[in-house]
């Protein structure tokens, strides 16, 4: 029987790692993710998890050790956030290019400067081009589930790409919620043993990994990563189905909430989705035709699902905790790509909010709705809106 425990998001991630039985874990402490390796080292110390836990001297070495382990043919896991993920940046491309299905838990946190330990998504968003799949959890249960799902998808032979699972710093990493821990036997059945056919370092069958690719081959290698990421779309949906059958919880690329007759749809990721549902309920009571949507999978970007969502809305308001300087929010830019050749499309608006742990309040969401309503009525509004700025200190 699945066990229910009250736990922090970081503990949920550690539990997911324990259930997935990676043979090698390499991690380095960083706020807000430190509890993940702490909890994992307890599991290892108590003999509850039979893994090598490498206490590396940096995040760069954490991911490098994971690459080494995964290339040697075993399941590997790590956890980090923010500066730690940025330090891994170089090796993230390599992990994807070498087709190593490493899974990483991220306590989504801002990037310096100024140094700030609180929540936004700048860390993972900034790694969107590395070839890693990206999942975002709304709550601690999702953090646990999505890590298991990430392993399953990553190790699928049609994919063989690494994956990161983000859950918001402090809002989830340090907040306790009830979490259902699946039965080990069912997880074992779901994930199976990882026995790669493409990556091993076995003296009985020596292969060379990490070759130099000349212009005659490099582009094809990159194309294969592209193809794998495209394949991941279907594989993720299959795995979501299988996950539901085994564990009873349903996941979607994009999960919609009261969107059926909505004129304005608020699209977001992560824990903000929970806030939006409450907010939508409140606005519905006031008679506003509004809905919300949560993007669970950011890479591969759910292009078809965005198109379908856009058909329902007159204004698609994107609420995101990141910024790509000189263009706007990354999700806004990506959603624009999804809709660019659609004959009919809603007005797309971008709302950058909640950076560096700034609370996202209902007052801020009211502002989002006000701007969206103006756009709906044909008034000209800004496409990129910074919400909740303290104008008095600018």
């Amino acid at each position: 029987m699945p066990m229910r425990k009250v736990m922090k998001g970081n503990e949920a991630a550690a539990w997911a790692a324990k259930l997935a039985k990676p043979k090698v874990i390499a991690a380095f402490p960083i706020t807000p993710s430190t509890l993940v390796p702490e909890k994992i080292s307890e599991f290892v110390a108590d003999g509850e998890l039979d893994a090598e836990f490498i206490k590396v001297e940096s995040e760069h070495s954490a991911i490098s050790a994971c690459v080494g382990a995964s290339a040697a043919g075993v399941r590997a896991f790590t956890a980090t956030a923010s500066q730690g993920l940025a330090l891994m940046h170089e090796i993230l491309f390599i992990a994807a290019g070498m087709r190593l299905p490493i899974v990483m838990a991220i306590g989504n946190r801002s990037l310096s400067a100024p140094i700030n330990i609180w929540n936004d998504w700048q860390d993972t968003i900034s790694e969107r081009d590395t070839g890693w799949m990206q999942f975002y959890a709304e709550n601690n249960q999702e953090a646990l589930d999505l890590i298991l799902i990430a392993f399953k998808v990553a190790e699928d032979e049609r994919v063989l790409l690494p994956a990161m699972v983000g859950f918001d710093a402090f809002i989830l990493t340090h907040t306790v919620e009830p979490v259902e821990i699946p039965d080990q036997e069912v997880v074992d059945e779901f994930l199976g043993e990882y026995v790669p056919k493409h990556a091993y370092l076995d003296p009985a069958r020596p292969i060379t990994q990490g070759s130099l690719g000349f212009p005659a081959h490099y582009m094809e290698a990159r194309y294969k990563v592209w193809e794998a990421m495209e394949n991941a779309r279907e594989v993720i949906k299959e795995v979501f189905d299988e996950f539901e059958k085994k564990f009873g919880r349903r996941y979607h690329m994009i999960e919609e909430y009261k969107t059926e007759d909505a004129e304005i749809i608020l699209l977001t990721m992560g824990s903000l989705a929970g806030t939006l549902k409450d907010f939508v309920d409140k606005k519905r009571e006031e008679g506003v035709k509004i809905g919300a949507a949560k993007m669970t999978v950011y890479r591969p970007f759910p292009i078809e699902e965005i198109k379908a969502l856009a058909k329902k809305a007159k204004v698609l308001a994107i609420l995101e905790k990141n910024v790509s300087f000189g263009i706007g929010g990354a999700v806004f830019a990506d959603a624009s790509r999804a809709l660019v050749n659609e004959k009919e499309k809603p007005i797309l608006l971008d709302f950058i909010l909640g950076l560096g742990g700034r609370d996202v309040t209902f007052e801020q969401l009211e502002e989002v709705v006000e701007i969206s309503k103006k756009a709906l009525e044909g008034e000209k509004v800004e496409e990129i809106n910074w919400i909740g700025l303290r104008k008095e200190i600018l």
Partner: protein
Amino acid sequence: MMAVKKPPITTREYWAPGHAACAGCGPAIVMKLATKAFSEAMEEKYGDPNAFAIVHATGCMEVVSAVFPYTAWKAPWIHVAFENAAAAASGVEAAWKKLGRKGKILAIGGDGGTADIGLQALSGMLERRHNVVYLMYDNEAYMNTGIQRSSSTPYGAWTTTSPPGKYSIGEDKPKKWVALIAAAHQVPYVATASIGDPYDFYRKMKKAASVDGPAFVQVLAPCVPGWRIPSEKTVEIAKLAIETGLWPLFEIENGDFHNIKFQRFPKDGKFKKPIEDYLRLQGRFKHLFKKPEAIQELKNQIKELWRILGKEVELP
């Protein structure tokens, strides 16, 4: 019937012909000998000469040996990046442990990848006591990018980023000795070697591969284009480095600096050949002969190194 003597170095090959290294490449000799030594050690220890995997830092030997779709490696081999061979090797070793696979991991990096950009990962790997041998092939500059100085470039040497000029004698800092840094981690085995004494290098690689836990070997490996030397002089120059006292051969076990073992050390501490014999054969030191004070400074630095190692020496 003639008795067949066992060759002093195994005839097994892991470094195949067809790699793209320069004629007379010192590091290429290192690759060949190191893997052979590893193989013999693994055969003696585990009964399986192939019980090893190689993790290679970015650098000349990586680039010349693994151009897709070809490979010069007859052993399991992986390259990840420049600065992380030791970290990636830590991961491979951990995986092998969990797979129950017997053997040892050989990490290889040049001096740039080891003394500079990879030093942190190296320190971490040594400190965590992974069962890895880290082999630093020292050609004393960033040769793969076209001869830039590293912290392992010796005093006085020309490189493209330490050019001699009106206000420069060439490289103006003493060489950083990574072997001593490695030994300070108190790991089971640290050694220096030179391809000028292949049997000494071979023995040390075997020893490094045989000990339980981490080991570090720093081997001098002349670079033909980088040192401005004729391709047939590689080994001769590497030999002169030993004979002039410029390249100490030593072994330090468990960080015991009080009991350093030396090889090829003259009993009276007097080296017979002057370091000028070593310098003269190399274009990278050509300019020093117009600046005898710089050669004297280099000699002082070498004497100081020997003194730190516990030996008073005389350099002619």
